[in-house]
């Protein structure tokens, strides 16, 4: 037995027939081929599967796809716009915020959620915000630096008039 669901994934409307037991992460990875969202555990501890559902970071291994019916879902594949990296992506690259890269998509999605709520977080606030995401490679130090840098880029862009905002985004990507 399957259920009919509608998701808006990275801005695209997708209609799917899914088994009720199917997890959102399975639908993203296996049905929609969005393999940037990873699975690193089976107990909702690691955060590698973090995506946004209606603007909020959630662990997609802990949500049934049918629960997301009617929602907007954003994955790591939807972060760059028109080929321009999101400031978080640029900052992770710039600050060496990744090594093997496996936790990176989830880490970036969690950080984006933080910066939407708190545009100027302290290092302590950043470290607490990413507590639900494990990284075994970096020791977190450069991840914290990357999130701090992206926050600064985003604040600069938000404070500027639109034309300057575009320039800031361009500069951020140029630097990348």
């Amino acid at each position, binding site marked *: 037995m399957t259920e009919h669901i509608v998701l808006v994934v990275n801005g695209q409307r997708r209609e799917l027939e899914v088994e009720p037991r199917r997890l959102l992460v399975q639908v993203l*990875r296996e049905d929609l*081929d969005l*393999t940037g969202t*990873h699975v690193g555990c089976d107990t909702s501890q690691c955060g590698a599967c973090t995506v946004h559902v209606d603007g909020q970071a959630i662990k997609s291994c802990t949500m049934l796809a049918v629960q997301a019916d009617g929602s907007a879902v954003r994955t790591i594949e939807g972060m760059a716009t028109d080929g321009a990296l999101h400031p978080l992506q640029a900052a992770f690259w710039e600050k060496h915020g990744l*090594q*093997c890269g496996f936790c990176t998509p989830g880490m970036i999605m969690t950080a984006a959620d933080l910066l939407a709520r708190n545009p100027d977080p302290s290092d302590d606030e950043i470290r607490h915000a990413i507590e639900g995401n*494990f990284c*075994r490679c970096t*020791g977190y130090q450069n991840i914290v630096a990357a999130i701090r840098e992206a926050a600064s880029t985003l604040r600069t862009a938000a404070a500027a008039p639109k034309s300057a905002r575009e320039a800031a985004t361009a500069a951020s990507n140029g630097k*990348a």
Partner: protein
Amino acid sequence: MTIDVLGTPVKRTEDPRFITGKGRYLDDIKLTGMAHLAILRSPYAHANIRSVDTSAAKAMPGVLGVLVGADIPYNPLPMVWPAGGSAGIQNNVNTPRVLATNSVKWTGEGVAAVVAETPEQALEALEAIHVDWEQLPAVVDAEKATQPGAPQLHENAPNNVVFVWPVGDKAGTDAAIESAEVVVRQRIVNQRLIPNPMEVRGDIGWFNPGTDEYTIWMSSQTPHIQRLLLAAFVMGIPEQKLRCISPDVGGAFGSKLICYPDYALTLFASKQIGGRPVKWVESRRENYQSTNHGRDHITYLEIAGKRDGEITGLKVKTYANLGGRLSTIGPGTPTTLYARVLSGCYKIPNVYAEVTGVYTNTTFVDTYRGAGRPEATYVIERAMDLFAAEIGMDRAAIRRKNFIPPDQFPYDNPSGLGTASGGAKIYIDSGNYEPALNKAIMMSGYMDLDKARKEAKSRGKLLGMGLSTYLEMCGVAPSKWIGAVGEGWGAAMWESANIKMHLTGKVVVTVGTQPQGQGHETTYAQVVSHELGIPMEDIVVQHSDTQGTPFGYGSYGSRTSSVGMTAAVKAAGKIKEKARRFAAHMLEASVDDIEIDGANYRVKGSPDKVKTIQEIAFALDLAYDPPEGMEPYLDETAYWDTPNCTFPFGTHIATVEIDEETGDTELVRYVAVDDVGNKINPMIVDGQIHGGIVQGVGQALWEGAVYSDDGQLVSGSMMDYALPRAAWLPVFELDQTVTPSPVNPLGVKGVGEAGTIASTAATANAVIDALSPLGIRHLDMPHTAQKVWRAIQTAKGGKA
């Protein structure tokens, strides 16, 4: 003019795919017609298999096949690094089969497998398999397993002993201890750890019935070695009929090095179902139960010396838990990689160690970041602190007094680096330990420790600082040494690289090493860019596929920069030499008159007579006008068999604060001064040190694999195993000294493991230092709040 990028913090070329979600890890690969495999694992730590009934499972929806051990005609998995040395040590070997046949030796050993159309169908069918078990008593503690009356795992291993391996001078060490002014003894436990790469393991096996060829995609650090082991040792097929591919690997830390049963299982299953690809990806729970664990030593140490702090002897007896069966290099890890470096950076004249490898009803133990060297560092750095406490000496002063002096390199280490290896010697190549110690002391405020202790005490905190003046051995290893009597596996430890400059001047570098997050695509390109004088953007580095890359032994033991990249330097040298000869031909000059300046090949004294390497490559690829006897094309392969290992060192100083009421321990400061020789990319080096430190701190404070007495893995998920989280850690303060290694032209040593090797001892020593005012001289790790609180209560005479 191309900017020289060697030694600069250039951003990583592999990152764009990872930050956009376009990395391609094993589970991201979908092949046409792919079936899925699941493994039934033993629920018991020790049991005989009376029978397995698969009939119901075979009838389940979507099931393509059900396999049990007896179906699989392959050999048991190989164990290729016995406890060796010139003494000709007996190793009582038992290795896993692809699936267990008669008995299981740990909770999680594979017993049967289902291949089905979907992963869910495979898992559902597992539940329909009925195994008739005869449960047996289990033992999980290595020391207890050797005692009379302990449950016996294997007929050929009385008292569960795999080997008893001695190294060093027993009589001399006994005499040193006998005659010493001071002897300190301590039992210490280096607890079992679970490596925890964020990507679990998995494979896709594919048998092509049209060609009789096998292909496997595997999340492995060692695709070339796996090809050799699977073909020649396990499956008995011609090596050229097997291709091994590692896609992007999401971390490994030594746990993706060894030969696992699932490799042969997916290949066999694919053949059984007529050549459809078969995918298996472990769950995290399976990863915890059946991918290798690390550490797990019980050690009795004796350290002897004079009242002035001079250490005269070190004697160590270690029980190394190797699990229920031996994995690929299980015995090599607690012997050569551990006991041969036990004396660390100290000049200790008498060293003797005896290691007993032991079977227990637990997952096999093998390489985990540092593999043997963190255990050795923990022993010697705890021992130095214990001795200093005994004679009332400052912990930095005792280290200074016993350092190998800088004028004594290369140094022949008495704990056996240079001795029991059939004549092939390894020396500590270089070192200058005191500057790193001094720098770390200045940075950390160690001189003001008493003041800091008082200040913390006023806040209800016990403050402590811990030193670790570590020595690391990496860049394994000279083949001659590995191949010495009984010390190797009939193979070698060199590395290889091939460089091709195509007609367009673009370069492809193929290598035998295998990245798992270290940024090799960037650092190899930096090296080759420097050597050939061409932009990094013109270079691509390819790896991880036995088809299309030269043979290599893979990436572990911090060996890629010192061994692998030296092969790339040598290959570039061959390219330059050929380009030089062809430039002489083009410029009508003698070869001796051609000077190389970056990409320019110029006639001495005639600055306008010049050809770039790109022009040379173009002409040489076209080969319209080659000189007599010269083959077309710039295409060179080089091999590098290192003459010695490399020996990074440094000083790490941890500062902890313990809440006296709750026992909660916080790492508040961490200073690391490392000497890893020259750096190819300092940004990447720092990243390796950061991550390494956290893995070592994790062991000191939080991590530990825990088995119940009957062999159930109690810490069986990420909910139960305490991996370090971001908010638990301070900002690490890093600095360096630079003593280039003399054993390779880059002067590099390797950095993948240094942080982990140093940080466990530094952090544990800090905890004990904080507790020392209460009269506590030692506690075993991990220093969780519960354990520390109990120790405080006991020390204060309360009930804990």
